[in-house]
Each structure stands twice: as C-alpha cells, then as structure tokens.
C-alpha cells in the first residue's frame, strides 16, 4: 500500500493540515534559536581572530544564551507535536492497513524480553525501546518495537577512565506467535568470520555451550546463517526446507542481515535499521505525499512477515 490510497483519507488529511501549522511554528522557532546560537559563536570567533577575545566572547554569549532559551521553551511543544504525530497520524495509517494494528509510543519490548530472546550474545548496559506496534494477521498475533541496546567498555587512559558505548543492536525486534509447538530453543544468527570459527571449533573439537551447531542441508542458508539449537531434531522440525527458503527471502528483502530465534512457542526476529522510525518531520512538510511512504512500507513489511513465513498455516496440533 502506498500513500496514494491514504491520501483519500479525509480524517488523516485534516489532522495533517492542523499539525502542519504547529510544525511550521516549531520549525521557525527552532531555526531562530539555532541562528542566535550560531551568530553568537561566530561573533566570538571573529572577535578573537581580530584581537579582542574577551569583549567579543562576552558579546557573543548573550545571543547564545538567548538561542538556548528559545530552543528550551519550544521543547515542550516539540514533544507534544511528536507525540500527536504518533498517536494520530501513525495510528491512523496503521488502522488503514489493518484494523487490529495499534501503536503505543511509550511502550516497547522490555530489556528482559530482549535478553530472553537470545538473539544477541551480549547483555545490554543501556537499553532504550519505544513505539510498540501490536496486531494480528488472521490467526497469528504479533508485535514489534524499536530497540536500541548498547554495552559499554571502560578503558584506563592517561586522563582517567574512559567509557565508550557500542551498539549491540539498533532496529526493530519483531515477535510473533509461532505455528508449531516446541520445547527447546533454536537461534539463527548471521554468519561472520568469528562465529564460523566458533562453530567449527564446537563441532570438531569441543563445545562450551548447551546448544549444538545445527548443520542444515540448505547450502545458501548454511552460508548465510549459523544455527544453534538445544535439540537437533526439533530445530529441523522448525526449520523445514520451505521455512529456510522463506527466511532467506526475508533476509534478502531486508537491508541488513537479520537474526532469528525460536523460543517458548514464539519467533523473534531482529531487523537492524539505521534510521529512527515513526518520527514526525520538523523541517519537512507534513503535506508531502511521500511523507508516510517509508514508515508504511516498514509496517507493511512487518505485517507481511506472518504471510511470508506462512505462520497462519495451522495444520499442526497448535491452533
């Protein structure tokens, strides 16, 4: 579905028109704030170059402070504007796609569930999540949210301790009810050099983990992913030849390599992304017909996973 079909939605168009006024106000105020800050800094630099550092810095400080106040004062309005965008615009777009879809901007996938999914080996030290979208595609319930998980490293340098933050994952975590019953866990991670060596080591010499490496007969799948599982037969019961093909197709359609896990009757999929989704534009018009295209195609992509992975086929004992 493209924006063209949403363009006919009068309610949405009215909301956008009202919000556009607010956006213009915020944008011009923000611009004003930035100009003052920029001007103040420029004044200080030029004055220093010309040989009057002290007076020019003092003269420059005033516009910088004023600019800061302007930005600070508009911040509440900005937050309200962003919130309205999610509550009214995104949720309307979601309803248009499927009436069961809802968004809870403040909620997400909690850190505990992120760790429980075993998609990533490192436990996060800092964790942020928002924009929980939940819904149902026929028989299959699913939800997804934006997640940013990081870990920190502390190194001792000449100037004291230095803390650095590194991404574990930034993107969308998708969770759906899986169509088969199973007891153990199966993890599918993208294959890289380190994990390939680890896998060789654990199959040929010694394994430290409670999970075995599952060698699958689909050559492409085995080249793209490394699969770990608590039960060789169960992992293959989940990853049937057809399922492997579907996962490969899903991976092919996403920009970055995906990770999957099958745990306690659920399937978890991590899609790394480099942009923040469902965010209201500030310096771009809300009336731009392409406004929602990217967000909608993301939602549609998530919604279609259920179909793509054939999770509605419930011919097994789980209904």
């Amino acid at each position: 579905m493209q924006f063209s079909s949403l363009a006919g939605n009068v309610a949405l168009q009215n909301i956008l028109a009202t919000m556009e006024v607010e956006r213009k106000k915020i944008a011009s105020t923000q611009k004003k704030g930035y100009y003052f800050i920029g001007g103040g800094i420029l004044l200080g630099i030029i004055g220093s170059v010309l040989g009057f550092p002290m007076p020019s810095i003092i003269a420059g400080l005033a516009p910088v402070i004023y600019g800061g106040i302007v930005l600070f004062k508009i911040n509440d309005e900005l937050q309200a504007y962003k919130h309205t965008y999610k509550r009214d615009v995104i949720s309307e777009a979601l309803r248009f796609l499927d009436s069961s879809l809802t968004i809870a901007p403040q909620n997400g996938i909690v850190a505990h569930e992120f760790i429980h999914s075993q998609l990533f080996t490192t436990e996060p030290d800092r964790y942020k999540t928002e924009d929980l979208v939940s819904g149902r595609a026929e028989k299959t319930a699913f939800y997804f949210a934006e997640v940013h998980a990081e870990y920190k490293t502390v190194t001792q340098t000449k100037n004291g301790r230095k803390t650095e933050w590194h991404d574990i994952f930034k993107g969308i975590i998708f969770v759906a009810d899986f169509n088969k019953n199973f007891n153990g866990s199966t993890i599918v991670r993208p294959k890289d050099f380190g994990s390939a060596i680890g896998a060789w080591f654990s199959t040929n010499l010694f394994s430290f983990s409670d999970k075995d490496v599952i060698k699958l007969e689909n050559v492409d799948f085995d080249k793209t992913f490394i699969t770990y599982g608590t039960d060789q037969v169960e992992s293959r019961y989940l990853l049937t030849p057809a399922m492997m093909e579907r996962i490969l197709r899903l991976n092919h359609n996403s920009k970055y390599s995906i990770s999957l896990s099958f745990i306690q009757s659920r399937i978890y999929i991590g899609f790394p992304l480099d942009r923040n989704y469902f965010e209201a534009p500030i310096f771009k018009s809300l009336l731009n017909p392409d406004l929602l295209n990217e967000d909608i195609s993301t939602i549609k992509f998530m919604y279609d996973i259920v179909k793509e992975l054939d999770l509605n086929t419930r011919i097994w004992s789980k209904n």
Partner: protein
Amino acid sequence: MIIAIILVILIIIGIFFYNSLIGKKNQVTNAFSAIDVMLKKRFDLIPNLVEVVKQYTNYESETLSKIVELRTRASAGNISDAEKAQIDSQLSTSVKGLMVNVENYPDLKANTNFINLQSTWAESEEQIAAARRSYNAAVTDYNNSIMMFPGSLFAGMLNFHPVPVLETAVEERKNISAKDLFNN
C-alpha cells in the same frame, strides 16, 4: 623443550579429535534412535485413526485393513530397521490416500477427533522428516570426519567405515496425484 611442548600440544589436539570422532559416531546412533521414537509415536496413532474413520465410512475398508496390517507388521518387534522404514513409507502413502478420500465424507471431515488426528499426523510427518534430516546430517558429518585428514588416520586404526545416508523412498518423492489415489 620446544619439541616436548609441540608434542604435548599435538597429543592434546589428537585426544580432542579422537573424542569428537567417537562423539560423532554416537551421534549417528543417537539420531537413528530419534527416528525410531518418532516412528513409534506415529504407529501409535494408527488404531485411533482407524477407529474414527470406520465410524463414518463403509467404503474405505480395503485401505483401512491395509493400514492395520502394516501397523501390525511394524509392531511385530523382530523386524530390521530397513524393513521398518519401508513399512513406514508404505503406511505414509496409504494414510495420505485416506486423507485425500476423506473429502468424500463431510461428516468425518468435521469430526473433532478426526481433525485432531489429522493435525497430529501432519505433525508426526514433519517430525519424522526432521529426524531423518538430523540423521543424514549426523551421518554426513561423521563420514566427512572419518574420510578427511586427520580423522582418516584414526578411522583407519579404529576400523570405522562410512555409513550410508537415508534415501528418500521413491514413493515419497513422487508428487501425490489425487487421481492415482482414488484409483487404488
């Protein structure tokens, strides 16, 4: 000194390789018993299936008696693994045929027991397929390690031989044609 260290390292690596080889051999046996367990589970479904179908149909008695006979043969206990696999594939074909014929009996199709049995059967089909794939993966892994260096050195000494993988039965490989099944 250096030679001694190298020797110790080589011996340790040797022990690991030897152990992993034994592990893989056991894995093959283990994977086969997994198939066996799944087969037994499936054979156990037969009596219920036959009971339910009997109540609704008078025309499938031939298929039913064939299924019952196969199940009795499978439970006899003194049959080889190969025979068991053979019986299973015949059984599988017969039941598939039965499931297709069920289309002719709307009452049976709507019976809750039957629907449950049908899904359990479908589940067992996939579980057996998964167990067979696991077995083949274990066999390939084992064969590779006894045929490749340095595993081949141990394999020669221990008299380990490659194990054949399970072939998919010809009947299973064929696409099922509803017409053929009705003609049976």
